[in-house]
């Protein structure tokens, strides 16, 4: 008796299993659309930035070290003249350079210095300082694997935030500026 009563429901089991699969597929599709698998979270967040000693782009006989930049928070923007997305990001940096409230340091990545200089001459130079890593060896320690990438480094030299891919007004407003404001508050207390 009991079995007979249960059977009609049992018939819907395959349908339910199929529906569950469809739900999983839809979740997977939506997740893929909202997450870019190229953007891997950095393990260096809240860890000290690596030591570096790199020549200035404008004057390669002068070197800039991590210690030179300590004392004030700054943004480190990895770019290159060969990097297509950096061209998209460039106008944004030009517009925001004086609005960030922290200095913007350019990190010229695996680039011929003359190419980088020509690129900045042509498009304008948004950076307060540009350092050049021609070999890309220092960039390995920063975990750089593509340009553009942007790091927010605090006064003590700790990496507080990293963005992979071009900065957009949206990313700046939603992610970067709150982080910079939080740093400013830490600094004043």
């Amino acid at each position, binding site marked *: 008796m009991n079995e007979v009563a249960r059977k009609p429901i049992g018939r819907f089991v395959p349908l339910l299993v199929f529906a569950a699969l469809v739900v999983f597929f839809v979740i997977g599709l939506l997740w893929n659309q909202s997450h870019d698998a190229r953007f891997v979270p950095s393990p260096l967040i809240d860890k000290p930035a690596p030591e570096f000693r790199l020549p200035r782009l404008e004057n390669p006989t002068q070197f800039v070290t991590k210690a030179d930049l300590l004392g004030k928070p700054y943004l480190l923007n990895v770019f290159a003249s060969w990097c297509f997305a950096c061209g998209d990001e460039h106008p944004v940096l030009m517009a925001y350079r004086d609005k960030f409230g922290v200095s913007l340091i350019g990190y010229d990545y695996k680039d011929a210095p003359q190419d980088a200089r020509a690129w900045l001459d042509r498009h304008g130079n948004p950076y307060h300082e540009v350092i050049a890593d021609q070999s890309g*060896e220092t960039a390995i*320690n920063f975990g750089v694997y593509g340009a553009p990438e942007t790091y927010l480094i605090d006064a003590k030299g700790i990496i507080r935030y990293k963005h992979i891919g071009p900065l957009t007004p949206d990313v700046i407003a939603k992610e970067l500026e709150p982080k910079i404001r939080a740093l400013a508050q830490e600094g004043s207390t």
Partner: protein
Amino acid sequence: MKRLLLAVLIALALALSAAAFAIDPLPFKDNVQRDRFQHLTRELRCMVCQDESLLASNADFAKQLRRQIFDMMQQGKSDKEIKDWLVARYSTFILYDPPLAPSTIALWFGTPAILLAGGIVVVVLLRRRTRPAGAIAEDPGDDW
């Protein structure tokens, strides 16, 4: 039969060619070190071209990291030390073999759990079918 064999051979040849790797003139001490290098870099992801290993990729990024790994091997670093060094910079994402961690529990145990659940369903269904003959006779239209 001959045709099948041919198809299998072609599939095999294609699979093997896909496993070919980028070649740098790295001066290995001996074949043991070269094999170790190839084994290690095959397990590491090229972050730029994520579906390729560091061994297989021709990206500039992969070339540079191959050189770096080669140098670390010359310094006598173990595979684990080299992997830790890479993970500290690029996160565990660089490992093709994911470590067991809170964030990977679903990955490690999800499939066995689903398999187990499916097995339980099958067992329950089979048990129901092996009921006394009378029960089955009462049960027409059970066609799945």
